[in-house]
């Protein structure tokens, strides 16, 4: 008989359990939940009679847990290499029942809120007129048709690329994550829409899954998430750049209606024409004002001139003569004083309309 070393025995047994049983799903209540060395998750799953240890890494366990929650663990049966302890190596966890789902939802919401995943400051603005849209949803979902119909009603010439993924239950998680990743890394589009119709918390599990939420949060392409009816709120929507209340609403938020833009263009054209007309009217009135002002100025100059002419006229020697004064000249020089003349001098006296020649006696 073969003699094993301890490590050989543990290896063989572990492999035997793993391959022999394959992937198993166990349902039970969480107890003794703890995280050690910041990334190792341990808890036991129990029912009335038994308990079994479960182990995984924090980044693989995307459901937030708490003691007392009813869950399903999908995983492999294994032994720890060091201690030989039996455990279930966790692959996926699914909360069971409304209570557990609600609990998981609240725990995860609290955790992500602390990290700022939902905070407004991380939200990107959507392009106003996207030309390419990545649509992430199931081809079989009503949401797929709803979005396309509403987009067709609103805008033409869009390039819509559809990534067909599951949107129901846990299987959808890796598919949605891969699709978001694919658009971001290999298939650039202007905006992403992730959507599905309404459902129970159980139906919407993928949209409350940490991996999906983080993929949405990390998307460099702006992303709209719209799930179900108005009343269904998932953490995915809260982490999106824009939340839509329904698939149809997502289409409405992603692109404006042609009709509204046509109206806006018409308004813009009218405004341009009006303001250029007003501008011309403004210039016209400035010119009219200028012409008026020049007229007033010219008038005042004219008045001024005629006043001057009048003044000059009234001051002329001729005007003085007309009033009865006369000028006495001796040898063509004006006589101002009596001492300038003597007896026998011939004087010329200028009157307004002629001259008198006289002799001093």
């Amino acid at each position, binding site marked *: 008989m073969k003699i094993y070393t301890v490590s050989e025995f543990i290896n063989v047994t572990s492999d035997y359990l793993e391959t022999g049983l394959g992937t198993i799903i166990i349902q039970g209540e969480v107890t003794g939940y703890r995280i050690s060395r910041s990334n190792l998750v341990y808890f036991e799953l129990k029912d009335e009679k038994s308990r079994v240890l479960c182990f995984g890494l924090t980044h693989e366990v995307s459901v937030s847990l708490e003691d007392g929650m009813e869950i399903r663990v999908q995983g492999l049966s294994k032994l720890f290499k060091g201690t030989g302890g039996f455990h279930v190596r966790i692959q996926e966890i699914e909360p069971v029942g409304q209570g557990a789902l609600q609990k998981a939802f609240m725990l995860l919401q609290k955790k992500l809120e602390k990290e700022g995943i939902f905070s407004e400051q991380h939200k990107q603005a959507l392009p106003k007129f996207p030309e390419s849209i990545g649509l992430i949803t199931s081809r079989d979902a009503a949401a797929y048709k709803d979005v396309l119909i509403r987009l067709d009603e609103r805008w033409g*010439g869009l390039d819509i690329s*559809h990534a*067909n993924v599951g949107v129901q239950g846990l299987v959808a998680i890796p*598919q949605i994550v891969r699709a978001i990743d*694919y658009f971001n890394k290999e298939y650039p589009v202007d905006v992403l829409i992730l959507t599905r119709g309404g459902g129970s918390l159980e139906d919407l599990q993928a949209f409350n899954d940490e991996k999906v939420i983080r993929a949405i949060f990390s998307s460099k392409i702006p992303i709209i998430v719209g799930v179900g009816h108005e009343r269904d709120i998932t953490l995915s929507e809260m982490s999106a750049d824009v939340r839509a209340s329904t698939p149809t609403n997502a289409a409405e938020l992603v692109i404006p209606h042609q009709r509204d*833009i046509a109206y806006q263009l018409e308004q*813009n054209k009218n405004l341009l024409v009006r303001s250029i007309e007003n501008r011309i009217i403004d210039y016209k009135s400035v010119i009219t004002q200028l012409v008026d002002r020049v007229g007033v100025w010219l008038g005042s100059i004219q008045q001024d001139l005629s006043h001057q002419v009048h003044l000059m006229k009234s001051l002329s020697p001729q005007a003085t003569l007309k009033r009865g004064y006369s000028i006495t000249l001796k040898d063509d020089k004006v006589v101002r004083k009596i001492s300038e003349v003597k007896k026998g001098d011939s004087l010329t006296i200028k009157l307004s309309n002629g001259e008198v020649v006289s002799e001093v006696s």
Partner: protein
Amino acid sequence: MTTKKENFEKLFTELEGIVSKFESGLIELDQGLKEFERGLELAQVLEKRLKEVENKVSEIKKKFTNPDV
């Protein structure tokens, strides 16, 4: 003339810029006439783009449902 391939958003933003200049009144008449003509041209190009009706839908070939691809 502006080609069809130019980004709608870019043209629309340019038009809005011109319109807001006119609204603010901060524009000279000679410059204004140039901008006015550009504005009307943009509006026409954009209106033409609005008349497109067909959206193109293409299916991405990559299979997201299969983890190995």
